[in-house]
């Protein structure tokens, strides 16, 4: 797979994978790579490490993406060609939700009314589950604006990423007329008897389960939200269409520490289940690349023969043997893994796999991201 080609040609790239494999890091590196190719790139990050966010200058609850300053990039030795821009945003479900209410509520009064309901306030606090909805919504919103040539979407950790992939569809189903009709009957419309009967069953179940009064409150809330839902539903299907088009690419990130192959294949399968195509795999933190390393034993002999007298160094080189063995084993197993990912990645219309090197430092600043972006652009 050529990530370099992807960032040059696509308009949306989604990075998914198991928790901690490097989705956020890879997303940022991809955006930087695209900017270096002269594109206006936006990375939508989810929970970036604080230091990475600081390095990029993204505030935690910013309402708008940050345009990363040329001076900041220059300090890291990065110069963008004409037209190249790097923008970054930290996805904050609360901010997205507020934006939805502001934009879609028919009047400012309606917006205020919605914000005033207890359910809306509770919704804002329950971050759980919201990330997925709002990621899809944010993607749509920023795509619509047309200010970016490429949007890179990071996804939440672990299997929740799958919820994100499914979110547009679930939202569409949830916001289905029939579902809403049951929970929030439109007073202007006469419901058909089936819907009325269903509404009654649901009301009974909800009242008995959640206590007196809750069902009414829910209906009121959904009623006032109803007009918004319609627009959100259109967005949800818009996101789905976008993700299904050949403008979008899904890459599955894997890392050798996890049960990489099974996890990666699982993610690919889930993407396929949703009717989408996984472009390929990225083996992040790979040891597969470097060659011609001198074993510590050889180094010790060479140094000793050359008159090295530092006994501490000679001892340390001896003690390095188990680490060197471990590294050799990992180089070998990463190469095998990469081959397997390449094979798996070619199935079902995908384009194989590529590796991103393990860096010696924590990747939390622009210079480190730049090294990864170089790796992305230079792979043959």
């Amino acid at each position, binding site marked *: 797979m050529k990530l370099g080609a992807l960032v040059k040609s696509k308009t949306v790239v989604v990075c998914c994978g198991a928790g901690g494999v490097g989705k956020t890091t890879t997303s940022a590196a991809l955006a930087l790579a695209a900017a270096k190719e002269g594109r206006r790139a936006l990375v939508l990050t989810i929970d970036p490490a604080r230091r990475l966010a600081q390095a990029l200058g993204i505030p935690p609850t910013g309402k708008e993406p940050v345009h990363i300053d040329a001076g900041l990039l220059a300090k890291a030795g990065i110069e963008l060609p004409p037209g190249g821009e790097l923008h970054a945003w930290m996805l904050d479900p609360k901010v997205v939700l507020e934006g939805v209410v502001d934009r879609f509520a028919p009047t400012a009064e309606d917006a205020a009314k919605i914000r005033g309901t207890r359910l809306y306030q509770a*919704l804002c606090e329950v971050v759980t589950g919201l990330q997925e*909805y709002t990621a899809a919504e944010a993607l749509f919103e920023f795509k619509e604006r047309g200010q970016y040539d490429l949007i890179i979407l990071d996804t939440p950790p672990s299997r929740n990423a799958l919820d994100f992939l499914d979110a547009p569809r*679930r*939202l569409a189903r949830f916001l289905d007329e029939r579902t809403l009709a049951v*929970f929030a009957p439109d007073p202007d419309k006469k419901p058909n008897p089936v819907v009325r009967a269903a509404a009654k069953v*649901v009301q009974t179940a909800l009242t008995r389960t959640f206590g007196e009064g809750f069902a009414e409150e829910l209906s009121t809330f959904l009623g006032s939200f109803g007009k918004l839902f319609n627009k959100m539903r259109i967005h949800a299907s818009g996101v789905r269409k976008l993700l299904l088009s050949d403008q979008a690419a899904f890459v599955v990130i894997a890392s050798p520490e996890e049960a990489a192959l099974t996890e990666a294949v699982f993610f690919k399968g889930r993407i396929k289940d949703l009717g989408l195509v996984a472009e390929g795999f990225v083996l992040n933190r790979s040891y597969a690349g470097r060659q011609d390393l001198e074993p510590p034993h050889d180094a010790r002999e060479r140094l000793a023969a050359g008159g090295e007298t530092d006994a501490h160094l000679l001892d*340390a080189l001896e*003690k390095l043997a188990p680490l060197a063995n471990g590294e050799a084993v990992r180089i070998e197993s990463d190469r095998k893994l990469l081959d397997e990912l390449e094979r798996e990645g070619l199935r079902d219309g995908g384009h194989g796999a590529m590796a991103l090197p393990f860096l010696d430092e924590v990747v939390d600043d622009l210079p480190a991201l730049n090294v990864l972006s170089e790796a992305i652009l230079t792979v043959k």
Partner: protein
Amino acid sequence: MATGEHIWNRELVLVTGKGGVGKTTIAAALARAAQAEGKRVLLAEVTSEVANTSPLLGFFGQPRPHGEAPIRLDDNVDGVRITPSAGHRLFLSAALHSGMLANAAMRSAALNRFLLAAPAFPEIGTLYMLVTLLRERWDHVVVDLPATGHALGLVSLPRTVLRILPSSGLIGGAIQEGLDALTHPARTGAVVVTLPEALPVQEGLELEEGLKKLNVPVRAMVLNRMPKHAFSETERAALDAHMRGRATEPLLGTREFRRLERALDARARFRAGVPAGVNRVEIPLCDTTTDSQEIMEHVGLALRQVHLGDPSPVEVMP
């Protein structure tokens, strides 16, 4: 805190931490260790209906989903998968006084969509199921929670929910019961797992703070997969200087050495950062095998030797 106690010595043991740190391994190992001490344990895997494997129960020979009720895994060890829809079914059958009606209600497409798609409702199902399990009689319920954000979401949920749901309702009542259990220092102990790397340690410490803010008693922080080594300080410094100054090709083992140095830094930060009152446990990296079952058994043996309040962290590994 009483010294000499085992780490799992609470009715509800919540194992949490960021993705991939070893939560599942440690949850299974805690069950193994408690079992070896003659305790009856329920291993609970908080998961979703779409997951088609059960890594936690897989350690006890149940790698696939197996229905909604707890099943016997081994002598004194039962296992269960906690899923939102299993929880929904439970509360609906309690509310409608009938499993049949509940099943019928769950088949109502509208209700089902609502329960699984509306934010927070999946978690309400999860929490409800946990509460019903706690009413039964095991010595210890060991819960393998999903990665960080969602664990915090799950335990912060009760307060939010109670603000909108009357506690007179079935759910409100159960959520209150759940909140009481989750915040009861004598009944509950969270175990926050982290890794010897800069970011995971920082995130682990933040998670500990977050849980404490929600009044969830954190019993221990576990630094899992700490690598062993035989270098003295001077030797490390000499090697570091040599690696930096090399004119020829790089030395094999450099990356692993850098990793070790970072792990040592992270451990120092862990030792300094874990607040008083929270126990520190260090579990060595098991590098003699890659078999996850064997690793779990090793970790179980190590955990059996942990007595909280010991002045020195354990560094045992067979």
